[in-house]
């Protein structure tokens, strides 16, 4: 968006400064300098002069060359003051040399050039030489007559001051030729022209007039670094006032301070830009632009009339509010919320914070990436100025399929066809995980390629843990997925009967789930991938429905199911049920103990199950027992689950659940999953992070103590293990096993095994 401000009139701030003397930035023609010679001109002139005694002919040749060089040079530019003596000398010596040889033409030619270099040459010459010089001067001269409306302007001819404009014309009798005429006056822009004087004629020059210099137009901008374009051409950026002032003449710096105050700009943050030598009687377009700001345009017109009224001492031109540029941000609001929270939020590959997040963002399209260790979400957000764009995402655990290789003849080759087959099967089957695709990455991060997949498989086969770790990191960087999968055909991938290994990794350890698929077919893959979708609810997975009762199937006549155990204090115990009671029906149906467990899983906490528990005299006694939800040690170790997938799911669920107790149960089971891979340190870390695990069969603070002890034992930290087991040995009110064995009992057995507390009974 462009904000235009057209300044139609010229408002001069002549009163701003008591006096000014802007730098005389001349508008000279472009200089074209000769290619530097090996030796300077004057050195060569001196050498030719010295050679004149010894070898006149050679000296004359050199002088002729130097003469030509001088003529050609002066066709391009006037001589500098410092150059002039050497050029004069060339022609004085040359004339003298040719005079010796009676080459009168060249003598006269030399004097003609000498007079063109120095029209007022008056150095003493030999009489004959003076005589010829005078002759040339008389015969070849014309008259240059210079007048100008600008009084007191200095008249310079080929850089030599030859007069001052006054009431009478400046009149010069000089030899004919091409001259650079220039009029200069302080506070004005010089006026220049090339004039060609013809012998015997008078050339009158009257239209040269140095124009009064226009002070720089000052713009105050509320921030540095804003790009400035004048008439469409980039001319720089606004500069912080404090820095700019150091480069300015005192008058301009002082004037700048005054406009700062006048415009009420904060000098500590404000910036300025000067447009120097602005054109007169023509509009000037000045644009200010910056990333994330609305473009501002000022159109400035400085008229000659206005300029004439300007205090010639004013150091700056200031257009009041029109010269004050306040950049308006071109932003909208981006709001990012995620479940779980605390996800890293990237905006166009730059991390900008963590969710929930709200920030102003430049209008336009932006890549937004919400990245959490459980997975990520990528989206292109269109930000509209002044409006809010909301990204509210529930992150699912992500799985990235990295590719497929075939292993044949001791080599590993990418198998793109197989990769495509697996990809399609995954896409069709996956519900629990989000299939991750490559994310936009900053250029410094290496890209995952087919070769990387091969490297990963080689690292697995070789047991190269370091390479594996590095490649897993690269994979997760590329895909933002904590789970990555590769497929390895154990033979030609084109052959459907080739067995296939699917390997599933979690990014923080080297342990892999490896599942063999007997043949490469979509159906076989779908069957395997269906396992990845179970459990579909990690929170439900770590809780079970129970009645405070354990049942057992029997072959006893009329007692198909028996109550195996009643938890003390449970509703079932309060209802009078006891171990050994027969259960002949549940909710009116005859079911097995296995079926009761399945039935319970369909129930919600608070539902009631009605058991028929006959006793003597009451063959139809019904007992209603409420269904409870309680934490459990989930079947993490069962082979029907991918352990790494469970880890990802449990971690994801723990990250999103708002309930601390639920989170602890999830994390308790997550630690067990780490134990499955022998990742004792990881498991310990999770166990130790638990706040207060609610108690259930095999789950609870005591169970956590026991498992921590086990991890320490595995790490060879026996003393620590014993300390924890001793603590656990005092906990008899918490079950470690679902058969009723307490934490205390099993800790005491463990201590006895470790040679501690010898003779301590289990006390089940």
């Amino acid at each position, binding site marked *: 968006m462009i904000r235009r401000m057209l300044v139609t009139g010229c408002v001069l701030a002549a009163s701003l400064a008591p006096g000014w003397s802007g730098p005389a930035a001349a508008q000279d023609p472009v200089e074209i300098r000769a290619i530097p010679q090996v030796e300077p001109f004057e050195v060569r002139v001196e050498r030719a002069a010295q050679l004149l005694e010894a070898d006149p002919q050679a000296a004359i040749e050199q002088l002729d060359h130097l003469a030509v060089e001088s003529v050609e040079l002066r066709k391009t530019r006037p001589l500098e003051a410092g150059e002039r003596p050497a050029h004069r000398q060339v022609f004085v010596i040359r004339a003298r040399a040719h005079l010796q040889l009676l080459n009168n033409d060249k003598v006269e030619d030399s004097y003609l050039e000498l007079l063109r270099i120095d029209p007022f040459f008056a150095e003493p010459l030999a009489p004959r030489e003076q005589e010829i010089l005078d002759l040339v001067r008389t015969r070849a001269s014309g008259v240059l007559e210079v007048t100008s409306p600008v009084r007191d302007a200095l008249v310079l001819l080929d850089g030599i001051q030859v007069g001052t404009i006054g009431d009478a014309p400046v009149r010069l009798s000089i030899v004919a030729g091409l001259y650079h005429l220039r009029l200069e006056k302080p506070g004005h822009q010089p006026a220049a022209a090339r004039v060609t004087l013809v012998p015997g004629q008078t050339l009158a020059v009257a239209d040269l007039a140095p124009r009064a210099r226009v002070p720089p137009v000052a713009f105050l901008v509320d921030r540095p670094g804003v790009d400035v374009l004048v008439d469409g051409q980039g001319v720089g950026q606004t500069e912080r006032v404090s820095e700019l002032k150091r480069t300015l003449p005192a008058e301009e710096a002082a004037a700048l301070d005054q406009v700062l105050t006048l415009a009420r700009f904060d000098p500590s943050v404000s910036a300025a830009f000067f447009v120097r030598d602005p054109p007169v009687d023509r509009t000037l377009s000045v644009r200010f632009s910056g990333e994330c700001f609305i473009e501002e345009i000022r159109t400035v017109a400085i008229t000659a009339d206005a300029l004439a009224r300007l205090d010639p001492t004013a150091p700056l031109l200031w257009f009041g509010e029109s010269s004050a540029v306040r950049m308006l941000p071109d932003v909208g609001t981006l709001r990012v919320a995620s479940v779980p929270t605390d996800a890293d939020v990237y905006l166009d590959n730059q991390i900008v914070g963590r969710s929930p997040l709200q920030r102003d963002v430049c209008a336009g399209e932006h890549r937004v990436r919400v990245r959490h260790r459980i997975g990520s979400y990528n989206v292109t957000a269109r930000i509209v100025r002044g409006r809010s764009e909301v990204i509210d995402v529930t992150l699912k655990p992500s799985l990235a399929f990295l590719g497929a290789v075939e292993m044949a003849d001791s080599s590993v080759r990418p198998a793109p066809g197989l990769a495509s087959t697996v990809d399609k099967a995954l896409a069709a089957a996956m519900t629990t995980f989000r299939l991750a695709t490559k994310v936009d990455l900053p250029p410094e991060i290496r890209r995952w390629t087919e070769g990387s997949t091969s490297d990963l498989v080689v690292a697995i086969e070789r047991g190269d843990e370091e390479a594996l770790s590095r490649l897993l990191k690269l994979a997760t960087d590329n895909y933002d997925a904590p789970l990555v999968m590769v497929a390895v055909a154990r033979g030609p991938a084109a052959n459907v009967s080739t067995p296939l290994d699917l390997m599933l990794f979690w990014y923080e350890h080297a342990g892999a789930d490896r599942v063999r698929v007997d043949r490469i077919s979509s159906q076989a893959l779908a069957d395997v991938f269906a396992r990845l979708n179970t459990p579909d609810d990690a929170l439900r997975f770590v809780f079970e429905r129970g009645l405070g009762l354990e049942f*057992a199937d029997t072959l006893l006549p009329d007692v198909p199911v028996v109550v195996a155990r009643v938890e003390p204090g449970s509703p079932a115990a309060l209802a009078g049920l006891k171990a050994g009671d027969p259960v002949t029906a549940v909710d009116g149906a005859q079911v097995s103990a296995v079926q009761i467990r399945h039935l319970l899983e369909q129930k919600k906490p608070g539902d009631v199950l009605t058991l028929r528990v006959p006793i003597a005299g009451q063959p139809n006694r019904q007992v209603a027992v409420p269904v409870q939800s309680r934490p459990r040690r989930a079947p993490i170790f069962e082979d029907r689950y991918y352990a790494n997938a469970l880890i990802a799911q449990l971690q994801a669920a723990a990250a999103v659940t708002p309930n601390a107790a639920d989170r602890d149960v999830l994390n308790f089971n997550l630690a067990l999953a780490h134990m499955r891979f022998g990742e004792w340190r990881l498991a310990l870390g999770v166990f130790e992070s638990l706040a207060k695990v609610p108690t259930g069969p095999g789950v609870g603070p005591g169970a956590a103590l026991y498992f921590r002890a086990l991890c320490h034992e595995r790490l060879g930290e026996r003393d620590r293990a014993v300390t924890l087991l001793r603590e656990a040995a005092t906990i008899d009110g918490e079950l470690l096993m679902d058969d009723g064995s307490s934490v205390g009992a099993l800790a005491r057995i463990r201590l006895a095994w470790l040679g501690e507390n010898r003779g301590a009974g289990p006390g089940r």
Partner: protein
Amino acid sequence: MAAAVAIAGAQAPPPSRPAPQAASPLVLSARAEAELKIEQAIGHLYQLLLEQPGTPQAIQARLRLARLLALSGSDQAALAQCQRIREDVPSDSPYQTRALELATIVSRRVRVSSGFPLLPVFEAVVSRGIQSLDNPRTIEFESESRFLLFDEGGSGRLYRVAPDATSQLPVPRDMSAVSLLPGGGILMAGKDNLVAVSPARTFTLTGSWGGRTRQLKEIKSIASTSTGDLLVVDGDFDGLLRCPAGGTSCAPWGVSTKLREVVVGAGDWVYALDDKGKIVRVFDSTQKSLAVVGPSVGSMSLDKVENIAVDQSDGLYLLDKDLKRLFVVVMRADATGRIAPTSLGSVPLPQDGPMAVKNPSALGVAPSGAVYVAGRSSARVMRFQ
């Protein structure tokens, strides 16, 4: 990071699971049990279940644990372990059946502890094809629903009784004892030799005692351990003889008194009934005397125990023919390894009506703990459960 690439999954258990030990918890547990360190044996099995649940070994461990828990008196825990096996293994797994049978035995004990009657249901087993039993001696179970019934009357008859049919098996001359062998074979003792069925084999046993070696021709009872060793009660020897697996030479073992019956129970414990029918001595596999049952059980004195049987969970069943009563005793181990026989109770055998068992002589216990009794001068086999 794990020390090596860890692989988990159905096809390849993860090498990074708990590092292999010198002996697996299962082996350590068996060792501890052999040394009667029952709590330690249980501890090893819990260790396996805690650290490696879901492995095939875990199922074995649960079954063993259930038995040991019952031995240590934790019947409810044993029952829960049995049920967990049923939930964890496929329905066609043999562990399903074994867990259900053990659960039934333990359930019975739990129910008795809660005040329910012992073996309240009795009924006649359908045994078509058996006209009459002269002197039934042994009932051996091949499965829950199929058993061998040995009638010593005449020259001896051996029946295989199944729900749908009863068949008579060929037997050696003057058959005197029968036993099931590990793996399902049948071993029959006759006057001249022993005949094994499946695999078929005929051989004689010799016993060495008193500086002499002689052929065993008066075998009254024979039993096999899980390793194939034979334990023999011979009329010519006052004591028990043990014959190593595959061999034919037997030597005195365990007890030197006149015996009537020998049976082998769980953990290869040997139960030997003395000839007077008053005492049952219990030995472990190293001849160590574990316990003595009798001459009284609970508040009752045994009169004349005719036969004994054991279940798979260290339950001992005694058939007193004079008291017309069936006694049930359960072995319990305490934390120090001491085995204490504990009476579960007794039930009288019906003496009147169509279910009467007037001269009880044969006793067998089905894998689920159902007790089968047969008597002389009757074709009836009674089941108590």
